[in-house]
C-alpha cells in the first residue's frame, strides 16, 4: 500500500496474535494499516488516524498502543495482539459476554478498541469504581452507546474476575 518502489521497502519481523510474521513494508505504513491490509486483521479499526479515538488500539508487548500512531517498522521484534487474537485465545471471553448481555455496543466500530482497553483494566485487577473506569475509557470514543453500558459491562467483568459477581 505505498507509492514507494519495492527497493524502498524495509523488512519487518514481528509476532502477531502468536504467529511469527515477516513482511516488507513501506516505511510510512502504520501498524494499523499493516494489520488491516497486509494481514487482513480488520477487527482493528481506524476512526481518526491521529491518536484521539482509540478505535485502533492493539496490544504491543502487552500494553495498549494506538496502532495508527506506530509505524509497522517500529513494531519490529514486538509481539502484537489484536482483538482477533484476544478472542481466539479466550482472553476476553467474559468481557465479550458482558458486553453482549449488557448491549454495550451498537454499531460495533469502537468495540475492538473498547475491548483492548477493557482487557487492560481487567489485567490490572482490583475493583476500580465507575469513575475510574470512565477515566480509563476516556481515550476511547463511542458515538453510539453513551458509554454507560460499556462501563457497566467492564464493571461486571471485573466483579466476576474478583469473584464477587
Amino acid at each position: 500500500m505505498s507509492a514507494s518502489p519495492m527497493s524502498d521497502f524495509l523488512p519487518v519481523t514481528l509476532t502477531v496474535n502468536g504467529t511469527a510474521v515477516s513482511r516488507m513494508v513501506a516505511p510510512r505504513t502504520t501498524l494499523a494499516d499493516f494489520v488491516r491490509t497486509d494481514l487482513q486483521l480488520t477487527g482493528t479499526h481506524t476512526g481518526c488516524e491521529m491518536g484521539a479515538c482509540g478505535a485502533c488500539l492493539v496490544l504491543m508487548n502487552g500494553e495498549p498502543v494506538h496502532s495508527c500512531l506506530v509505524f509497522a517498522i517500529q513494531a519490529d521484534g514486538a509481539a502484537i495482539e489484536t482483538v482477533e487474537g484476544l478472542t481466539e485465545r479466550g482472553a476476553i471471553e467474559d468481557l465479550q459476554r458482558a458486553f453482549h448481555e449488557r448491549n454495550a455496543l451498537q454499531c460495533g466500530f469502537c468495540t475492538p478498541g473498547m475491548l483492548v482497553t477493557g482487557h487492560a483494566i481487567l489485567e490490572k485487577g482490583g475493583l476500580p469504581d465507575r469513575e475510574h473506569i470512565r477515566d480509563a475509557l476516556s481515550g476511547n470514543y463511542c458515538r453510539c452507546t453513551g458509554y454507560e453500558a460499556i462501563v457497566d459491562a467492564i464493571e461486571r467483568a471485573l466483579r466476576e474476575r474478583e469473584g464477587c459477581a
Partner: protein
Amino acid sequence: MNAPVHGSTAFDRPAHVGRGMSRPNAKRLLAGKGNYVTDLALPRMLHAAFVRSPHAHARIGAIDVEAARAAPGVRLVATGEDIAKLCTPWTGTLDHFKGMKSAPQLPLPVDKVVWSGQAVVAVVADSRAEAEDAAELVMIDYEELPVLADLDTALAPDAPKVTEDFADNLCFRSALDSGGVDAVFASAAHVVEADFLFGRHTGVPLEPRAIIADYDASEHRLTVHHATQTPFQFQDLYSRHYGIPEARVRVVAPDVGGSFGVKLHVYNEDMAVVGLSILCRRPVKFVADRLEAFVSDIHARDHRVHARAAVAADGTLLAMDVEDETGIGAFSTYPRTSVVEGNQVIRLIGAPYRLEGYRAGLKVVFQNKVQTSQYRAVGHPIACAVTEHLVDEAARVTGLDPLEIRAKNVIPDTAYPCASLSGYKFEKLSHEACLTKLRALMDYERLRTEQAELRARGILRGIGIATFVEITNPTPAFYGIGGARISAQDGAVLAVTPSGEVRCQISVTEQGQGTETIVGQVIADHLGVPRDIIRVMTGDTAVTPHGGATWACRGAGIGGETALQAARKLKTNVLSLAAGILQAKPADLDLVNAEVVDRDGTVRMSLAEVARIAYFRSDTLPDGAEAQLTVAHHFAPKGYPFAFTNGIHGCHVEVDAETGLVKILKHFVVEDCGRIINPLLVEEQVRGGVVQGLGAAFFEECLYDQGGQLTNGSLADYLVPMSCEMPDILIDHVETPTLDTELGAKGCGEAGTAAASAAALNAVNDALGPLGARLTQVPMTPARILKALGRF
C-alpha cells in the same frame, strides 16, 4: 413492560415482544469480525482520493493534471467535466416546500467551488497512498470570490450571491400564524424573550463514510458497497443519474459504523466514485478520512432564533412568537433537502403545551459552507431548547417551580386526540404521566433541598427540565408528496426454510440499533417460533424488497409492523397447510414454539415436518393444499401522518464559576415510545441519544473563520463527549401504543437527543441564576459560561 401485545391469541402469548434481549448479530462485532465497507477489498480494486478546494468561494480556472497522471500507480485523473458526461445533475428541492430553491449539483464542480473542502478533481490509483500523493500534484487555478461565511453577510441586501442566478441567498422562507398573536401579547401580564444561538455541529459516526463502486461493463451492471442507512434510495439515485436500469443496480450496506442521519444523503464524492468505476472499469473505493469527513459530511443545526412568550399572571402560557434563521451551506442537500430542520423547528416549538396563539417565521439561508441536513433529532433540540428556556423564564417571572409550570401547561393526557397550533396532529401523548414519573425518578424535592443547602456553601448546582414531542414513523407526507422517491413503506419476505427454520429478508436496515433483533422478536411471537431459529437479513437491495429503511425512527414502528403482518400471513399459510395434512380445520390449530398444536395445546406436528412435506413430499399433500411457505408483504403507515412520541428530561449539573467547567452529575429521561419491543435496546438508544445531545450542549461545534475555513476539523480539535465527562443516565418509561398499527410501537432513536441539550441549558441557567447570569447559546463552553458570569 410484559403486557400482552393486543391482538395476540390465547395461543401465542408474547414471549419475546416486551423483553430485553441482547442482539444475536452483536457477537460477530465483538469478535472483531465485523464486515464494514472500510474493511472490504475487491479483486482489482482501485482507490480514489480527491483534490479539495482551499477556498470557500472561487471560480475554477485552468486545471493541470499532467503531473498527477504520470505519477506512480495512477490509473485515472478525472475532473468535473469528465464525470459530468456520465452523471446527470441533481437539485435538492422538494415540491411541498413552496418556493424553495437550490442550484443543480454535479459530482465534481465544473465552474466554481462554493465551500472550502469541496472535492474538485478525483485521482484513482492502485493504493490510497499513491492516489493521495498524485492528488498533491494537481494544479488548479482559482479566482477568489467574496465569501459568505455567516448569516448576516448572506442576508445583507447588497450581499454577493452564492448562486449568481438567484435574486438572493434565501433557499426557503416559511411562516405560520394562528392569528390574534399580537393581541395576546398586548394583554399578557408578562412577556419573556430571548435570542438563541445554536452552533453548527456534525454527526461524527466513528466509521467515516465509505463506498466501493463496482461497475461491470459486460452486463452494464453496477454494484455499490455503501455504508449507508438507505440502500434503496441510493439504488434509485445511482440508476437514474447514471442511466443504469434499476434492476441492474445493487446497493449493499453491510455493517455500518454509525450513521445518525449522516449516511443517508447524497455526497459529491460518493456519486463521483460511481463514475470513476465506470471510467476505470474496475472497482473503486473511497473512504473519507476524518479530516475529509469534517469538511464534507453534512453538518446540522446552525440556527439563530429570536423567541418570546406571553404569560398570564398565574403562569399560564398564552402564546409564542419566534423567528428562526438557519444557515445551510451553498446547496440544499439532495434528495432530502436542507429545509426540513428549520421546518421542524418552527412546527415543534411550543408543541407540548396548550397555547392560544402561535406565530413563527423561518429563513433558510445559503452560505459558503458545507451543506447542513438531517442529523439525529432533526430540528427537535432547537425547538425544545427555545420552548423550554422560555418556560423556565415564565416560571421565574411568575414564581413557579419549573415542574409546576410544566404540569400546569402541558396538554393534559385526557385531551387527545388534538393538534398543535402549528398543525401537527397528536394521537395520544402522555406528558402528565411522564412528568409524574420524572419527579419520582429524580427524587426532585430532595435535589432541590440539596441544591439550596449546597448553594449556602457556595456550590452551584442546577436542575434543568425539558419536555419534548418527537416525530417518528413518517408517512409519505414527509418526502413522498414532495416528489422524492423515498419510500414510506417497507417490505419483507418471510419464509419457512426446508428445515423448518425461518428466514426474514426485510427492507429496514441495521446500524447497531438492534433492528434485526426486534424484527426477530416480533416474528417469534406472531409466527409462533423461538427467536433463535429466525434469521433476519437486511441491507442489500438484491436480497430484500424495496423499502424506506431506517431513518426518522421508523425501524421499530414501520419495520416491526411489516414483520408482524408478514408473520401473520405466513402463519395462516402454515396452519392451512398443516390442516390439510392433519385433516383438521385451520381455526382449530395454532403454531406455538415451532409446533402445530390443537386448541388444548396438544402437539400435532412440528413446523419442520410441515416444511419437509411441503418442500420434498408435495406428492403426499391432499388435493388443493397450497404449500406457500414463503410470503412477501409490504406495510405503509396510514392514519396519522406521523406517530408522535413524547417524554421529559431532567439534567443535574454542578457549575464551577471560577473555571466555567460543568460537571454533569446525572441525567434522567422518562419517555413514551409506544409499545416497547425490547427495553434493553430502547434504553441504549435513549442513552446514546442523550450523550449526542449533551455533546451539542457542551462541546460540539464546527468553528469557521471569516474566510469560511473550518478551523477545528479534526478529532483532536472538535470535541466529542468522552466517557469521563458523561453521567449515568436514569430512564423510565410510559407506554402509550399507537392504535394505527397492531404492534403499537413508535420510535425512540431521537428521544435522547431531542431534549438533552435543552435540559442541560436549563440546568446550567438554574445553577447560574442567583449570580444573574444567563446563557442562550450552545455549546455552553467554559469561555461562554465565564462570559455570561462577566468574568471573561
